């Protein structure tokens, strides 16, 4: 009972911080849009995959990119909370460690999902403007995309929180975070199709959970997929479940 209000408390804090800092959210949207318009538009003049222009092909990948960066880097706030001792205030409350972790995952995911919702809206506007073709914005496709994004975001937020719980400086977090995020992004097939990859590359792409998130989203929004969408969903769900379990453990053994 008290754990539920506690989880709400942690979410309430993120929500309040979000309201106070709308500019941060806007700023975080600029980057993906630039990727879409510049990389997508630039390469789009010469590239086309499976009858889909490059901007449209790139769009689901950019959604995953946004989830990756925003959700994983959310974990840096745990390091700050440790530094200013706000974390102690939470840890000394009667809440269980598991509830604290769950509350943090929900809070961080909300943050990321709001940014993704804005990106979905921008995508819809782009398709009306004719910048993006072939992307379907039907209720079913959007619902399927949001499902994939929710599960993926929960897993990625957990990664950030796990790193954050073990780190003592924001700089250290930045380093480890980037070390993880960039390979996950580049090896996810967000930028290129994963058919006929060279042998040295394929294994890395196939063990990357982000690959399945991109593939699932591409199926939902473009009807293009390499794997069975159910396999995609199963992989990202397993990914999120394992990381939430690891995160709960990490929070129980967190150094202050």
């Amino acid at each position: 009972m008290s754990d539920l209000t506690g989880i709400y408390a942690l979410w309430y804090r993120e929500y309040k911080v979000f309201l106070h800092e709308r500019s941060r959210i806007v700023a975080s949207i600029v980057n993906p849009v630039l990727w879409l318009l510049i990389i997508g538009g630039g390469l789009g003049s010469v590239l086309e995959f499976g009858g889909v222009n490059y901007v449209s092909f790139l769009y689901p990948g950019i959604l995953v990119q946004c989830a990756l960066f925003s959700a994983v880097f959310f974990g840096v706030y745990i390091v700050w909370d440790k530094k200013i001792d706000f974390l102690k205030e939470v840890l000394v409350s009667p809440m269980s460690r598991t509830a604290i972790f769950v509350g943090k995952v929900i809070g961080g995911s909300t943050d990321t999902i709001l940014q993704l919702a804005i990106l979905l809206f921008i995508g819809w506007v782009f398709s009306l403007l004719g910048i993006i073709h072939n992307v379907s914005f039907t209720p079913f496709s959007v619902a399927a995309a949001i499902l994939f994004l929710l599960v993926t975001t929960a897993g990625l937020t957990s990664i950030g929180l796990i790193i954050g719980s073990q780190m003592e400086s924001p700089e250290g977090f930045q380093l480890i975070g980037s070390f993880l995020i960039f390979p996950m992004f580049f090896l996810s097939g967000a930028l290129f199709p994963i058919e006929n990859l060279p042998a040295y590359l394929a294994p890395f792409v196939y063990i990357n959970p982000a690959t399945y998130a991109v593939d699932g989203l591409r199926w939902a929004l473009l009807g293009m997929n390499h794997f069975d969408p159910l396999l995609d969903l199963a992989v990202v769900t397993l990914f999120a479940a394992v990381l939430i379990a690891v995160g709960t453990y990490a929070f129980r053994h967190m150094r202050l």
Partner: protein
Amino acid sequence: MLPAIAIRDLTKRFGTLAAVDSLSLEIGEGEVFGLLGPNGAGKTTTLLMLTTLIPPSSGTASVGGYDIVRDPDRVRASIGIVFQDPSSDETLTGYENLKLHGLLYGMPANLREERINDVLALVELTDRRDEKVKRYSGGMRRRLELARGLMHHPKILFLDEPTLGLDPQTREHIWEYIRRLAQEKKITIILTTHYMDEADRLCNRLAIIDHGKIAKLGTPQELKRELGGDIIHLRAPGCDPAVFRTLPFVREARTEGDGISITVQDAARHLQEVLNRAGTVEAVEVRPVTLEDVFLHTTGRGIREGPAEGSWAEKVMAAGTRR
């Protein structure tokens, strides 16, 4: 009557260093108890163990009747703590910080709002409730955190350096609250401090901790009486402190600065004898023994290495660059 806190052989080792070394102590209900000690003596480590934030290496303690090792969740529900470093979210307002606290402690909405109003009035921040903590002064922020520590009506309140870095007016203010709380609400208060005047004026009883062990325990009066009555400070060139040590009423005599410091039982009665032995005296000063003298006498005069982390003020500044 059951003690509010009973510590039995509490030990915390960091590698080979025993930060807290089989500490045993009982603190009664409604007491204002002070933990004094030089930097790195083990005060904060003790506090962190009693509030279940770090587990002891061995030994245990009961806080509010619950064991800190076996029942940490119940312990946490019955205590409040004000940390040494700022622990409020400065991107939120004072009210939002308190609401967050109420939610974390599972308080129902109407009770929560009532308590927020109560504690804000107590620390006189009612008219600043909707301002962001970022815009609070150090003293206001401290008061807010004190209010927060009290909001869920803990039976036991831990205060880690409650007035560190505050101006005299604010310190006086906070002492007043602490005294009132102990008297009116029967809350047991455990505080650590570096300020001896603070300990002297606030605490019913105190322990001087050094190297993880209790070096002295008693009321401030007892401790001062134990050391002696008054201190005579003389400036007498060419005089050796050893000449005073044979006098029966002298407890201690040593060189200090450009003079000699002599601890005596009763300066009013024995001043003349001291002056007789000193020879030519340029200046003399007499003052009663303070807790500071007791502290220095107990823990020695060497400078202690402080912890490597930054001070309270540095942390506030670092936090200002966040988000």
